[in-house]
Structures are given as structure tokens and as C-alpha cells.
């Protein structure tokens, strides 16, 4: 676990806190038992209010609490008290409702990666329920930490990142994911972008920010083209990507665009790129 447990938001009423404390006592050290009965009622008992934006972690674990809800944090407390075995934890997820599944996944972000977490990530990868996939990938560095596990590795990481792109989730919510950019992922993202463009559909803006870190054939042309994209969000992403790539071939395109760029924040990036 992270060095300390996250505190519940101040908005959680005293009665709900007392209930949680009692529940933690009831499940303490007991694998299974009351846990499957108490766990589904957490959203109802503790509430679904979003937590205040703040970072939490330690020992390589990093969680952005602003993406979590009060019941997610309560689940971290309840599971820390119960210390369920792998079978119980998987069962909580597999036989859980939408919210139980997200709470189980959110709780893994506070713990070191283990085989059970990898199995849960695999389940989440095959889910099309957005909140479930979001809980597995967003607002923590869980995915980045899983990258170090050979059983998950680059292949597992790339598959999940591609689905992040497919679903349009913002890269900045997948904490530290950019540090594992790689050539195969760039190829996958560029192929997805081409497919989307052929269909007249939107391209994931963060494509530019990731492919720039591990360029492959076609990357520079895509970054240069992105500087002229009509959508501000895409153009900004391409400018940031071009800056990250640090390739002199892109400088003339940046200078050319700079003279005509109407958005101040994009101009600021292009100016850095031009010098």
C-alpha cells in the first residue's frame, strides 16, 4: 500500500464514517465473510461525491485523488482492513456491479502491483464499460507501474494505451504513461489515426504527444501536418509533440505556422520550437 491511507473527504458525514469504521472492524483479517455484503453498499452509505484534487502516494505509488469519489476511498479503507486473498478480490470484481468493479480497480492504485492486479487489468482491458476501464487506467500511475511486470510488459501496456486512445480518454489522466512511449505503440497509434482520418472521424489529440517521444516512419510528417490542423486542440497537441520530438526538420514548419497562428497559447509553444 501507499505509506498512508487516503483520508475521506470532509463532506462524508460522521454517521457514514462510523459505519465504515464498524465495517472495517467486522471484516478485519477475515478473508471473505461480510465483505461481499458490505462492499456493494459503499456508494450508498459513504456517498459518491468527488474528492478534492490532491496527489497521494509514496513508495513509487502516485494517485490523483481528484479523479476518485468518496466511496472509492472508503473501499481502499475497507479492503485494507479485510486484506482479501486473490480469490476473494477477483470474486468481488467479477460478481460486482458497475460501482463495485470500479472501486476494486481504484483500490489497486494504492497498492504495489501483483498478479491479482494484473489479472484485474486484463479483465478491465476486455470491458467496454467506460467507468470500469477508466478506473483501471486513469488518475494513478498503476498502468505505468504494471509496465515493469514481464507478464504485463510492453504488450499489455500498449494494448491498454491503444484502448485509452480508442475511447478518447486524456493521456494526462494516465499518470506517467508517457514515460513508457515506444515505437510499437507509436505505430499502433498512427495506424489508428489513419483509420480515423479515412473515416472522417476525430483523431485522439494525445496521439501527437506520445508518438513524438518514440518516432517511427511517418511521425515527423504527421507532426508537421498537425501544426496546420484546423482544430485548436489538435494543433496544440501537434505543437507540443513537435517540441518534445526536438527535431530540427520541424522548425521551418513551426516558423511558417507561427506567423499565422491565432491562438496565443499555441504561439507560445511554436516560439519555443522556433528557437
Amino acid at each position, binding site marked *: 500500500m501507499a505509506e498512508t491511507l487516503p483520508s475521506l473527504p470532509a463532506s462524508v458525514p460522521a454517521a457514514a464514517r462510523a459505519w465504515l469504521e464498524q465495517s472495517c472492524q467486522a471484516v478485519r483479517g477475515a478473508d471473505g465473510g461480510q465483505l*461481499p*455484503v458490505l462492499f*456493494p*453498499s459503499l*456508494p*450508498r452509505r459513504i456517498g459518491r461525491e*468527488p474528492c478534492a*484534487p490532491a496527489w497521494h502516494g509514496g513508495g513509487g505509488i502516485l494517485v*490523483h485523488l*481528484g*479523479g476518485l469519489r468518496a466511496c472509492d476511498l472508503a473501499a481502499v479503507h475497507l479492503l485494507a482492513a479485510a486484506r482479501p486473498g486473490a480469490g476473494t478480490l477477483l470474486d468481488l470484481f*467479477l*460478481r*460486482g*456491479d*458497475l*460501482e*463495485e*468493479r470500479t472501486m476494486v480497480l481504484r483500490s489497486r492504485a494504492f497498492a504495489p502491483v501483483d498478479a491479482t492486479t494484473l489479472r484485474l487489468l486484463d479483465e478491465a482491458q476486455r470491458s467496454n*464499460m*467506460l*467507468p470500469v476501464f*477508466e478506473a483501471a487506467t486513469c488518475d494513478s500511475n498503476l498502468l505505468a507501474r504494471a509496465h515493469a511486470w514481464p507478464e504485463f510488459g510492453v504488450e499489455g501496456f500498449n494494448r491498454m494505451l491503444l484502448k485509452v486512445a480508442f*475511447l*478518447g*480518454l*486524456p493521456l*494526462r*489522466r494516465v499518470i506517467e504513461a508517457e514515460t513508457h512511449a515506444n515505437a510499437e505503440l507509436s505505430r499502433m497509434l498512427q495506424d489508428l489515426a489513419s483509420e480515423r482520418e479515412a473515416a472522417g*472521424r*476525430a483523431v485522439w489529440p494525445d496521439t501527437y504527444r506520445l508518438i513524438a517521444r518514440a518516432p517511427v516512419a511517418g511521425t515527423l510528417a504527421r507532426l508537421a501536418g498537425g501544426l496546420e490542423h484546423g482544430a485548436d486542440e489538435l494543433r496544440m497537441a501537434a505543437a507540443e509533440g513537435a517540441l518534445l520530438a526536438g527535431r530540427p526538420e520541424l522548425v521551418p514548419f513551426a516558423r511558417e505556422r507561427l506567423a499565422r497562428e491565432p491562438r496565443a497559447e499555441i504561439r507560445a509553444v511554436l516560439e519555443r520550437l522556433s528557437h
Partner: protein
Amino acid sequence: MRIFEPHAHMISRVTDDYERMALAGIRAVLEPAFWLGQNRTSVGSFADYFDMLIGWERFRAQQFGVHHFCTMALNPREANDDRVNDAVMEILPRYLEKDSVLGVGEIGLDDQTRKEEKYFAGQLELALRHDLPVLVHTPHRDKKKGFARCIAILQDMAFPMQRVLLDHGNEETIKITKDLGCWSGFSIYPHTKMDENRMVAICKEYGVERMIVNSAADWGVSDPLMVPKTALKLEQAGFSPERIATLVWDNPIAFFAQGGRLVAAELERPAGIDRRQTFAGNSVLRGQDPER
């Protein structure tokens, strides 16, 4: 007009249905666990079905702004099947604790066998233990006798009648149920069971108190817009908007809220899954748009 559709088997419907239902004012739908058109042969199929009701189907509904709830049960048809009946009873208690499970149902009688009666009674005990109301399926054949038998079992167990919804009623059964203290359900179908005009006639004679209408839409010829269509017929017949709202919104909410898990205030806004959270204090919306 806001509508709570209290009985629709949405897993057998397409997304167009959800879209039309939402546009017609259906803000929430309750999906009772039932038979799937063919018999299951293992308890695992039930567990996966139950998981679908509390997971995937809920998510599917939310994408269209529809709140999704369910009731859980071993249905009377498969109560007759020894391959699954006891095993399903074993897994039910856990599912009855789930947040979106608002009752026990569909329980009751179908072919009116002894086994059906045994598991009906067993599930009434579960409902008492989990503090939930019950949705009772009544037979489509030999209905009056089946209604009477269901009521006898409920009374034998002293089950609180205000927590009972006797479903699939008609002009005959309302005569039996109107003074029992239970809730009377009517499934409005395009061709069978009950239609909108007959429902209007029943409401004229018996009022709308403790009455509930539903489409019971499933995999057969059925129409998930039957509740809004019935509401329109009632309005044409001169019913006030307040009385219609009692029938299609207040009543199902009042009945299913008895278990303490349905909060009417949470239905004030359409369901939503696109949380589009802010990030690190940045208010720019960067979340995923499910329509993209």
C-alpha cells in the same frame, strides 16, 4: 412527463429502444430477472445474467440518460428445474445486497406446480430478510386461480401486502386485488394481456391508487413505449396530468423505494456516464464523449 417504467426486459432490446424511451419521457427503467426464452442448464448462466443486470445493462441504459434498476430472483419457470433451482437460491442473497437491486422478482407462479410454490415461499423469506419488496409474476394460464394461490401463500406467510406488487393483472384480477392492500400491476402489450384502452377503463373504474402500469417489453412482440402510450390515452380520456403522474411516476417509485435503496431525488436528472472530470485544477473538459 417523466415516466418510471417498472417492468421491461431490456437485455433483449436494442439501443434504438433506449433512445425512443428516453425521448418519450422514460427516465428510469426496472428490469426484473426472469426467464430468457429458453431454459438455462447451470447456475453459472444465472450468475452471468445477474451480473449483466447490475453491470453492462446499467451502463447501456445510462448512455441514453435512463436510470436502470433491477429485481433479482429465481423465476417460477426455472424453479421447476432441479439443475438450477437450489443453486440459484444459494447465490441470490449476495445479489439482493446490490445497490441497484430494488426488490425480489419475478417470483410467483407460472404453471402452478408444487416446486414453484416452494421456491416462491423461499424467496418471500429472502425478501423479508433483505428488507425488500416483491414483484410477483402471475400465471398467463388459469390466471384467476393462480392469483388466488399467490395471495394465499403471501397471507400464509403474513407477508406485508404493501410490499407486494401482483403483476400482469387484468379486469378480472383487479376485483381480487383492489382491497388487499397490495399494489396491482398491469402489463400493456400490443396484442395480448392488456391494452391501453382497457387500462383506461380500469383506471376510470378503480382509480390510480396503488396501480402500476408497465410494458413488460421482452424478446417477443412487445413495445417499450406502452407506458407513454397509455399515458396519452389517459390524457385523451380526461385524466389530469397529476393523476397520470401518480400512475406512471409516483407509484412505481413509492413501491420500489420501500427497500431504502431508491432515492427519488437522484432521478431528478437523467442518468449520465460521461463524468468528464476536471484534472489537477484544470477546468477544461477533456473526458471521453461516448458518442465520438
